[in-house]
């Protein structure tokens, strides 16, 4: 169990805010430089996954519960696809962001930010969902091994 390693616990606690800030930087800088919702989503999920690896998957699930993860996966797709529908209602072609602000250039900015937010939500939650599923299995296996060990000890 990693829970007993003091150095790891302290270092991870220090790293977590930095990773999350970096994720946000990549998220909001995506339209000017390399990055965007996908990379930011992976970075943010990596922060939670790291936390889960050191402090245990239950602790990670206290921060981001499974229920929320399962809701966020479709929510991000809805935000992305819904942005396109909003453009249609504003009289432009699907995913044309120009009508979102008074000037088309600003509209494109707004549109890409919303769409990237959708990508961020879906990618981050999907990464977490995969981690929870596989990590959960490891816990189950541990429990089974523990029980088998106890039985062996008693016998």
């Amino acid at each position, binding site marked *: 169990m990693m829970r007993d390693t003091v150095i790891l616990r302290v270092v991870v606690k220090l790293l977590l805010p930095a990773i999350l800030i970096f994720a946000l930087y990549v998220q909001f800088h995506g339209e000017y430089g390399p990055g965007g919702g996908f990379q930011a989503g992976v970075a943010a999920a990596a922060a939670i996954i790291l936390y889960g690896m050191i402090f245990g998957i239950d602790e990670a699930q206290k921060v981001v519960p499974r229920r929320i993860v399962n809701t966020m996966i479709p929510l991000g797709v809805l935000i992305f696809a*819904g942005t396109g529908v909003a453009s249609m209602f504003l009289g432009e*072609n*699907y*995913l044309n962001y120009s009508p979102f602000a008074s000037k088309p250039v600003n509209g494109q900015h707004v549109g890409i930010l919303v769409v990237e937010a959708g990508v961020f939500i879906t990618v981050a939650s999907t990464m977490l969902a995969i981690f929870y599923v596989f990590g959960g299995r490891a816990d189950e296996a541990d429990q089974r091994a523990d029980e088998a060990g106890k039985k062996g000890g008693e016998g």
Partner: protein
Amino acid sequence: MLAAHLPALQVVIPLLAAPLCALFRRGFIGWLIAVVANWLAFAASIGLLFRVMNEGVISYAMGGWAPPIGIEYRVDMINVFVLLVVSGVGAVIIPFARTGTAARFNDTDQAWFYTMYLLALTGLLGVTITGDAFNIFVFLEISSLASYVMIAMGRDRRALTAAYQYLIMGTVGATFIVIGIGLLWAMTGTLNMADLAQRIPEINHTRPVLAALAFLAVGISLKLALFPLHLWLPNAYAYAPAVASAFLAGTATKVAIYLFLRFFYTVFGGGEFFASTPIPAMFLALSIVAMFAASTVAVFQADVKRMFAYSSVAQVGFITLGISMVSDAGLTAAMVHLFNHAIMKAGIFMLLGAVMFRLGSVKLEDMAGIGRKMPFTMAGIVILGLGLIGTPGTSGFVSKWWIVLAALEKDQWWLVALILVASLITMIYVGRIVEVAYFREPSAKAVTLREAPLMMLIPAYVLVAATIYFGLDTEWSVGLAQRAAAALLAGTY
């Protein structure tokens, strides 16, 4: 406003509905969303058909970025026909899905199942409607990944290995396709297919373009289950849930066939160029082998679902045979059979799903005597089976008629003989089912059987009725197919 956005709505409606199903996570609500979305998508296809008939090719610029720079959705006579088949078959299948799915899965799994169904629908419609070569690959992956999940949800544990096998083969196919597209892009600097169609003919003798041709031919042939590349199909269709089998049998291979036609006739420059490549000769040989080998294997299957899965490989052979002839009649035959086979096979798999629902098995021996216990279900299977054979009065006859016509046009009498013999083999395996279901004593299991629920029978019977209707009135199906064939041969886009 609505008519102008139909090309986008065609794909966006199921795309929006899919996450909604996942969000609500209730079986009934998920089903309701899927039904509404699928029916709206079908309505959008019909709307597109009317628009294409009135105003010709429709071009829709995604995000307002003008093609060829932006992604373009392009609808013409060829793909509107396929859109109708895909959304139409889906619209009939999805009401059927409720009974069987609700009986087997909990609320969450049902909702995920409908999500996957809608994503598969989105992908297939997207592949068909888009005018952008890379977009095709993206949608192909969306539909394939969703299909793998649907297949893996089958009742039998072997569904997992079937899905895995399909995943490996499907990914190899998709990789070949993307390599082909990449080579085309490297040579022309464009991914827009209308743009490609203008640039490729000038350079279609160069090595990279020929390599792209080879990669695309193999990749798409894998997806459409052409004979030696069909190995993923029988298990995938046999072990998938009934809804998935019916939907994929009716649509997935059909969309791949469309893709083949689109690339080889439209992008590479019309029928003339296609005829100058070795592909028609290879297709002719492989199609004939498929018609005989797959039909013969089908005769010896113990599992009826597997039998009809092999039959699908054989029937795809009939379609590719039409394509290989590079003539008006041949392409019309291919397009008509694409339509007719989608209806017949989807119907058969739905009725087999009804048998599975009541009997818990679709093994031939277990189905002994169920013709008396489930008269409507079995009668439906027999009528659709007659359609597969090509009996006059069913839509299958129309397809066979056009294929024979195309062969006669070229004075290939031997081919006519082969087509008729292949139809006879179809008769043998359909005959086996009739014999077992009607002329044997019911097994102990079958004695207590009741007829399938109406929620399953009515949708299936819509397809049975369509098989008979399109066998008698061919104005609509053949008419559209002929217009599509003419557009393909001319290479217009």
